[in-house]
């Protein structure tokens, strides 16, 4: 049934309304949220299976045919990212009660949480450029609510910056959509793609200019060099569970949009956009992000900075625009969403365990919390892509793609930044977990253990992605083949 395509957006919206009725009854709200997120995960799993076995699901909102109506497209790429989102959501909802104070939970945490999931799913599923903007607003609205939970002074300062930068980029986004509409006369993505193709070659300069403008908008959201300056501070101030959601989902929505736009619409001038712009920006993003991660002693900030090089890796695959590149990129995107959430959870637990965020004051945490220590070590290996973990598969494909197209400098930069990521993460392990047992560790062992359980779940998903690559990879290869041949998307939306 076509309506399946809208369920990942509607279900969390309903859940957010239901929990908003009883913000005070915390126990009930928690139980409801936990049950619902597991239920939603199962439903989304079913939809994913449906898409992969019976093809792309297209819903024309209100029965109005595209390009007049609003289309929702559950295709292979979007549904697999929606599934990943729901996996993270299910883990986060179990992490939240132990990480947030009761007061913070009562201030509509679960409502904003479900709204965020709804907005993120909407951004993945929409087939309409203007609606992409709308869903960006939905998820940003929810994220504004989440980022100020806690109400500290630093937090207010950083959230103000976050709101301002996002308002600016949203403004630019809607302006760009207006440009697109004035040139091609439509905002339906499949229809834009069809019409852009028909633009004569000598007039394609304006299309490229608009494409780069859109890229700029998404680059702000995705934190690509040189537009990542807002990210580290505003992602580090909220509670770990909020940081995990932001780090795992929000920047990924930005990079997904680049993925969608630059594999579907703006593929007329790849020698400029993909081969030069993306490749160079990917290199700088990887290098500068990882330098940031090495520059600080704040454990949470280290993880936050590590979001940036990951975006670089994904952008690199889009820049390569080949089967290997795209497959690697999608694999890396999924892997990074899961493992970033897991690492934020673990580092939240570490901060609780050690009682400080400052790495130079930490030592010997592993003696009291061996499970946490070894999980963190495992997370580090998964993140940096030590074989056989999931990061390795993505990076291998990306590097193979880069080498086969002769980008030697890019390959070198990618390898060096991988090593530096490993260094930045292993620093936490060596200085925080090893060494003399420190003073002032928490006595609340149960809380730390409760915080590690959702991380165990996410890490096992991550390990499955790596060890079970044999099972997963064929699906991802289907996706990249599907993205390179745009006709299926266009025909399923316009003639569906």
């Amino acid at each position, binding site marked *: *049934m*076509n*309506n399946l395509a*809208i369920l990942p957006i*509607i279900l969390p*919206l*309903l859940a957010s*309304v*239901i929990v*908003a*009725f009883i913000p005070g009854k915390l126990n009930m709200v928690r139980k409801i949220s936990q049950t619902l997120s597991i239920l939603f995960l199962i439903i989304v799993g079913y939809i994913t299976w449906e898409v992969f076995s019976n093809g792309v699901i297209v*819903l*024309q*909102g*209100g*029965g109005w045919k595209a390009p007049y109506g609003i289309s*929702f497209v559950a295709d292979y790429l979007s549904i697999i990212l929606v599934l990943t989102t729901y996996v993270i959501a299910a883990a986060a909802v179990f992490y939240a009660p132990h990480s947030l104070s009761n007061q913070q939970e009562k201030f509509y945490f679960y409502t904003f949480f479900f709204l965020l999931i709804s907005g993120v799913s909407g951004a993945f599923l929409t087939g309409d450029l203007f609606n992409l903007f709308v869903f960006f607003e939905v998820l940003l609205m929810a994220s504004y609510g989440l980022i100020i939970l806690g109400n500290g002074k630093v937090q207010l300062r950083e959230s103000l910056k976050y709101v301002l930068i996002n308002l600016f980029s949203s403004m630019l986004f809607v302006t760009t959509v207006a440009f697109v509409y004035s040139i091609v006369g439509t905002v339906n993505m499949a229809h834009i793609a069809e019409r852009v193709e028909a633009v004569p070659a000598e007039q394609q300069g304006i299309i490229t200019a608009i494409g780069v403008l859109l890229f700029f908008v998404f680059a702000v959201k995705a934190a690509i060099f040189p537009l990542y300056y807002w990210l580290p501070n505003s992602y580090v101030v909220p509670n770990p569970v909020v940081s995990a959601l932001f780090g795992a989902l929000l920047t990924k929505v930005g990079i997904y949009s680049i993925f969608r736009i630059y594999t579907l619409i703006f593929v007329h001038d790849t020698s400029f956009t993909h081969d030069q712009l993306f490749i160079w920006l990917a290199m700088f993003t990887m290098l500068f992000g990882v330098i940031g991660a090495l520059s600080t002693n704040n454990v949470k900030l280290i993880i936050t900075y590590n979001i940036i090089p990951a975006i670089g890796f994904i952008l690199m695959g889009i820049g390569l625009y080949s089967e290997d590149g795209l497959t690697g990129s999608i694999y890396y995107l999924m892997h990074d969403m899961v493992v970033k959430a897991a690492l934020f959870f673990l580092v939240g637990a570490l901060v609780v365990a050690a009682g400080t965020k400052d790495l130079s004051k930490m030592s010997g945490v592993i003696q009291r919390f061996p499970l946490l220590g070894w999980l963190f070590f495992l997370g580090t290996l998964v993140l940096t892509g030590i074989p056989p973990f999931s990061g390795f598969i993505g990076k291998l494909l990306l590097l193979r793609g880069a080498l086969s197209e002769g980008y030697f400098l890019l390959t070198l930069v990618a390898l060096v930044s991988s090593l530096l990521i490993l260094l930045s993460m292993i620093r936490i392990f060596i200085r925080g977990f090893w060494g003399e047992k420190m003073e002032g560790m928490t006595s609340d062992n149960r809380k730390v253990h409760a915080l590690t359980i959702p991380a165990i779940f996410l890490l096992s998903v991550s390990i499955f992605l790596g060890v079970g690559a044999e099972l997963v990879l064929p699906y991802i290869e289907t996706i990249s083949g599907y993205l390179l041949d745009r006709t299926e998307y266009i025909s399923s939306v316009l003639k569906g």
Partner: protein
Amino acid sequence: MNRPNDLILRTTTQLIAFILLGFSVYLFFAGHNAPGGGFIGGLMTAAAFILMYMTYGFEKIEKILPLNFRILAVTGLLIAVLSGVGSFVFGEEFLSHSFGYFHLPILGKTELATAMIFDLGVYLVVVGITLTIILSIATDSHEDPYEDAGV
């Protein structure tokens, strides 16, 4: 307590609030195919309420309108979402719209559309949110909400 002389405000409010409320209902019903709708209708209703709060003070209006505006907003949101989901039951596409003509007492032949259910949700959300925001600003950091809400 030394209250300012607000005879003019009180007298005009009796009239204006009534007109505002009536016009907001008109706007709400016009909404689905003419200028108007749940959003602007809701804003106008909220404006009428705020005018009444300003004139008669917080406590009196709270007695007349014992509503929790947060719950009102959430209810509206629920109605709006369910109006889209309703199409699932009939096997139609999400947000499908249908309408019919009905004979209502007094109004006569009236067009009723399912879009109005959605609009009703929007209306409640707008009234609820606007009043929540304004009342929480108005009653902020003062022990006596009456002082601040009264002009």
